[in-house]
């Protein structure tokens, strides 16, 4: 290189060495050519693609996608260097403590803080009057305040808060604050929430439903409702009671608020959804959003329990503003139970009808869910309890009534498998019963009723890839099902359960998706070659930073250690919806791929200039861009990068993702819409001690269709973790309330999360259906895997004991009660002599087997065909698959409001429709 080439416009001292080039920073000096085993068939590699190619195939460089990878922040965690909420220590910090209501429901008459304020070391005290604006995670139901404005609505509700120089002074000050209450009559039984009340827990103004505590009600009818009962030959009916459960994450809530000298607030908090806290803070503190920086610390488990903006976050900010010093609030475990947002206690009535050829001609679900004192995500939960069990099966009719009521309990909210878990359990147990009534194998029954890939559900959800069939087939083989089902001795059983879950909520909560993307990722690469990713996706331990890093690394052909993710601060990260609804991998990785593709293009153009090779011939490998026919022709990544940086410096790019338009137009049509859905099937093997009613799960075979395992290690971890969490709900976890409504077990000794002893061997089976819209084919794996474990265990308990349980958790006392009842019914003394279920196939079994095998072929044809013809739910019942049922048959009319005839004898949750909204009431006008 002559000095003339390098120094255009500049003169350099003779003899000086040319500018040196910065090092690559890669793991080793020499790049390797692409690993042919990881390159998809469609690109001439050896990676098999039985379901065809994917639009991202050409981006596969063999760097990291599909390889088991330790999470990029794992070393921080295992060495104890990760800072969680309570690890944030700022100079001069104060400790905040919260004054909580001792009453379930009361009017706050007065708060006297004089004595507390006089205590030495107390710096600031705040009450409801310091922040009167309301907030809430959903814009339609902003019903929370930083602290009580007029009423406290559950025991543990916030009344005031204190900031003091240390914890003991803060606690003493809490004791010294005098609050005068007028106790109101509280309600604890969700059924009472359906009635009119003298003092409804909230007032929704003209939208209030009667004078009741009904917060949200849903009525839906799809399909041929009139024929479902006449056509049915088998009916399942059950009334379920599901106890409320808490997320039980390891890290209790903790928050630090600090106002800096320029007047800006930084809030350090382990949040799943920093952006919503950002918005809520602006509303409550009445300052513009640009004055606030929400800093997400490491999150010690979220599971949905850290996705609401929380009152204590507001309290910390208010106290910090009042005191002019940083304020830290850390919860103890009891306070975690007061803020709750766990799974709703529910009463679900499930009716399933099957016709003479083993088709599911109707599902009728009635779900009453106990929302506790606040709305939280409840609006959505009410829909999810219904609409999320309209797949994977093809249905002749679907009737759903749902209601969410306020009670004076800690608020329920979103928890892993949001809204889908309880009703899914009821459906899958129902199918087991239907199979028994029809004398067919329950797996065969399911295989003969699956919706095909690229179809629409009865409610109009657009389904893309489906790996359900493969999930069922694989767990059947792995568990040795045919040798065990209905063949094990009394007390030993095996059961199947399936799941279906959204892979990213289709509609952003706070903005119009036509105008603003769901997810945005920015990239920046400077001279050093390292790639900085700016994303707002919140890594809550699920590995979102890793998956975004993997996606970028793959597209650019770089090792993971050249990627750094900046996702913590709202100051530097683009707006993102946050980590909920299993949306992060699908949406953020797609956005990251788009951003990386732009940079990849720049690099290839630069490489083409240097090598004088046509752009089309160049491919990206490990830190090298080269001619695919002659790898000797090529340049290193850094050379290409520096060439691309000429005249512009650091390369930057931006990518975003938004969902395609989808769904139908009826009221509530958007609830449950997602760009893709995950599917799973589990088999559980259990032992039931017939004399004590205690259940032990021995082994689980867990197949989950995650589209494509970007990081198989992480997917397996999610499957095993989901099993553990679901086992808790099905076997032992329960928020136990006394008759008077006291939460009896707000601690981890009596809130019984399964220990290592209760954990069975879980055999994760990854099914890859290769979703055409997912990043590299991926869908979610974080929530869906929880769903099937509950019904799988319930059905296994039935196989073992002949007891159809309909109350969770299946603790020893509950199951024993049923065993006793059965003994009494059969006039037996010894439960060890009870008969256990047996199975002799009816003629229907072969019909179903034939149908399943035809459908299997149908499904594969649909996957491999270029043109995806429409398939609407109903084709199995003789309808034209090209059109939705209601567009071809008047009997399939969609209804979202009950008629008067229904209201004569409504079901439990359906009775919420007896009330008339205030704005429509003549007696009030």
């Amino acid at each position: 290189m002559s000095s003339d080439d390098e120094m255009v416009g500049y003169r350099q001292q003779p003899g000086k060495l040319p500018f040196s080039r910065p090092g690559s920073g890669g793991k080793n000096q020499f790049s390797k050519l692409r690993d042919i085993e990881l390159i998809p068939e469609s690109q001439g590699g050896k990676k098999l693609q039985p379901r065809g190619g994917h639009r991202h195939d050409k981006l596969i460089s063999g760097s990291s996608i599909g390889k088991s990878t330790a999470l990029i922040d794992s070393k921080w965690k295992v060495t104890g260097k990760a800072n969680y909420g309570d690890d944030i220590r700022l100079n001069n910090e104060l400790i905040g403590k919260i004054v909580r209501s001792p009453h379930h429901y009361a009017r706050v008459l007065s708060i006297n803080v004089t004595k507390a304020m006089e205590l030495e070391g107390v710096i600031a005290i705040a009450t409801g009057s310091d922040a009167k604006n309301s907030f809430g995670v959903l814009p339609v139901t902003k019903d929370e305040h930083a602290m009580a404005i007029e009423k406290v609505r559950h025991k543990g509700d916030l009344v005031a808060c204190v900031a003091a120089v240390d914890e003991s002074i803060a606690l003493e000050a809490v004791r010294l604050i005098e609050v005068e209450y007028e106790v109101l009559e509280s309600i604890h039984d969700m059924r009472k929430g359906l009635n009119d009340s003298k003092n409804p827990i909230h007032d929704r103004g003209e939208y209030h439903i009667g004078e009741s505590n009904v917060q949200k009600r849903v009525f839906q009818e799809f399909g041929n409702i009139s024929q479902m009962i006449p056509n049915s030959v088998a009916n399942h009916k059950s009334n379920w009671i599901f106890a409320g459960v808490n997320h039980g994450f390891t890290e209790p809530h903790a928050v630090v608020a600090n106002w800096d000298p320029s007047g800006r607030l930084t809030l350090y908090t382990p949040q799943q959804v920093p952006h919503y806290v950002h918005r809520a803070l602006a509303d409550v503190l009445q300052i513009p959003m640009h004055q606030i920086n929400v800093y997400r610390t490491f999150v010690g488990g979220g599971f949905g329990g850290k996705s609401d903006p929380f009152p204590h976050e507001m309290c910390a900010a208010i106290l910090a503003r009042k005191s002019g010093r940083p304020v830290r609030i850390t919860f103890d475990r009891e306070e975690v139970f007061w803020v709750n947002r766990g799974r709703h206690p529910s009463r679900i009535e499930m009716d399933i009808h099957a016709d003479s050829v083993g088709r599911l001609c109707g599902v009728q679900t009635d779900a009453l869910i106990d929302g506790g004192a606040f709305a939280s995500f409840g609006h959505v939960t009410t829909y999810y309890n219904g609409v999320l069990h309209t797949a994977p099966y093809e249905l002749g009719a679907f009737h759903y009534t749902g209601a969410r009521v306020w009670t004076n309990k800690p608020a329920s909210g979103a928890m892993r498998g949001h809204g889908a878990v309880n009703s899914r359990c009821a459906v899958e147990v129902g199918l087991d019963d239907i199979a028994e009534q029809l004398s067919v194998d329950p797996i065969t029954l399911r295989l003969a009723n699956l919706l095909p890939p690229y179809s629409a559900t009865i409610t109009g959800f657009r389904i893309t890839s489906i790996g359900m069939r493969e999930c069922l087939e694989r767990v059947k083989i792995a568990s040795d099902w045919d040798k065990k089902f209905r063949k094990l001795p009394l007390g030993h059983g095996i059961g199947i359960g399936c799941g279906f879950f959204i892979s990213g909520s289709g509609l952003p909560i706070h903005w119009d998706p036509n105008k603003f993307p769901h997810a945005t990722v920015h990239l920046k690469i400077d001279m050093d070659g390292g790639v900085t990713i700016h994303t707002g996706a919140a890594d809550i331990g699920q590995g979102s930073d890793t998956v975004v890093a993997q996606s970028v690394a793959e597209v650019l052909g770089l090792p993971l250690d050249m990627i750094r993710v900046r996702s913590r601060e709202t100051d530097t990260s683009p707006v993102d919806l946050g980590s909920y609804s299993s949306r992060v991998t699908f949406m953020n990785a797609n956005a990251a791929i788009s951003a990386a593709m732009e940079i990849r293009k720049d690099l290839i153009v630069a490489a083409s200039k240097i090598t004088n090779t046509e752009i089309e011939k160049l491919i990206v490998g490990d830190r090298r861009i080269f001619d695919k026919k002659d790898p000797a022709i090529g340049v290193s990544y850094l050379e290409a990068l520096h060439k691309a940086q000429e005249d512009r410096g650091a390369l930057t790019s931006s990518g975003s993702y938004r969902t395609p338009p989808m769904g139908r137009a009826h009221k509530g049509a958007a609830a449950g819409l997602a760009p893709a859905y995950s599917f799973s099937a589990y088999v559980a093997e259990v032992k039931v001690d017939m004399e004590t009613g205690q259940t032990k799960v021995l082994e689980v075979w867990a197949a989950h269709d995650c589209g494509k395992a970007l990081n198989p290690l992480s997917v397996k971890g999610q499957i095993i973790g989901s099993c553990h969490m679901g086992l808790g709900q099905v076997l032992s976890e329960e928020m136990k309330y006394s008759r008077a409504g006291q939460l009896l077990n707000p601690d981890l000794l009596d809130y019984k999360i399964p220990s290592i002893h209760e954990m069975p061997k879980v055999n994760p089976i990854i099914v890859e259906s290769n979703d055409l819209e997912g990043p590299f084919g991926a869908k979610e794996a974080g929530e869906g895997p929880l769903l099937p474990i509950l019904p799988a265990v319930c059905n296994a308990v039935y196989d073992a004991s002949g007891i159809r349980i309909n109350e969770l958790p299946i603790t020893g006392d509950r199951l024993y009660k049923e065993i006793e009842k059965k003994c009494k019914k059969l006039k037996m003394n010894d439960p060890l002599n009870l008969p256990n279920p047996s199975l002799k196939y009816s003629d229907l079994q072969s019909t179903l087997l034939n149908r399943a095998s035809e459908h299997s072929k149908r499904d594969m044809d649909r996957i491999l065909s270029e043109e995806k013809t429409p398939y609407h739910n109903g084709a199995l019942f003789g309808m034209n698959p090209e059109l939705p049922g209601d567009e071809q048959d008047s009997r399939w009319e969609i209804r979202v409001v009950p008629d008067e005839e229904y209201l004569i004898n409504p079901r439990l949750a359906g009775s919420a429709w007896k009330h008339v909204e205030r704005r429509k009431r003549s007696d009030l006008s």
Partner: protein
Amino acid sequence: MPPFKLHTPSSLDEAFEIVKGLKAENLDYDWIAGGTDLLPNYKWHINTKPHVISLSKIKILNKISKNHIGAMARLYDLSQSSEIHPLIAKSASLVASVMIRRSATLGGNICLDTRCFWFNQSEEWRESIDYCHKCDCGTGADCRVIPNQNTLCVATYQADLAPVLMCLGSTIHMASPEGERSVPMYDFFKLDGITKNILLEDELVTHITLPNDISDWEGDYQKLTQRDSWDFPEAGVAVSWKKGVTGPSEIRVATTGIEPIPRFHAEESQRILDTWSGENSVEELAESIRKSVKPVLNTWFQPSYRRKMVKVLSRRASKGLLEM
């Protein structure tokens, strides 16, 4: 946790000197052994004291041998010991979790405080129900389990070792500044969830001794819990027996986890010994034990279930009786 001053005497005499000093100043205190029961209660502000005297440095209390176990013997060491009776080792190995067993002691387990949903809660929680009889904080509060009676506390005794030690005929030894004394284990407990046992003010358990014929005794201990780890027993039954020529020559049964104190069932066991007829006798014994216990609703499982399970546990713990 409320602050307290910790004393760590290295002999019993030194400990009693400290006690005298505290008494002179009218200061309240608690003994602390492994701390796995006391400290969680302190964290919840339950009956806290300004002074705590630790027994951990008093070497004499650590001894473990066939006939003598010191109050400070760790449950983990008991569970691993080949010297002591296997039934003691078994029941020690079933207590809580391995982490707790590393710290928890024999004396602490015997003297475990009784437990109740209305008592084992934080201060704020208890305040919201206006406290309860067992920790009334000066309010004179009523019992929350069985209202309208504030004479007897029905909190449940949920420790595993006492029934086994009763069944093995152990004697418990105590010491206080006034001197030493000992009683059979089955006389140690005193019916009431607050008083719990006969320990006088300033008195502590020093050790237990086991009779010389200990090796002739066999037995079993069965407990009911939700989980295999951590949980306190919701019911526990110990059965022991001595082999005779045609059947057992002696039988002892004791229960725990059901009532405010562990119970030694002398009458019931004597009755079936007198009319021993094998399997039927075991059934009869199990039924009589079930009938004699009266659990209340203050722990995880329903009382009716716990009572029924006492029968199952009795039957299972008696299995060895039929293998003679």
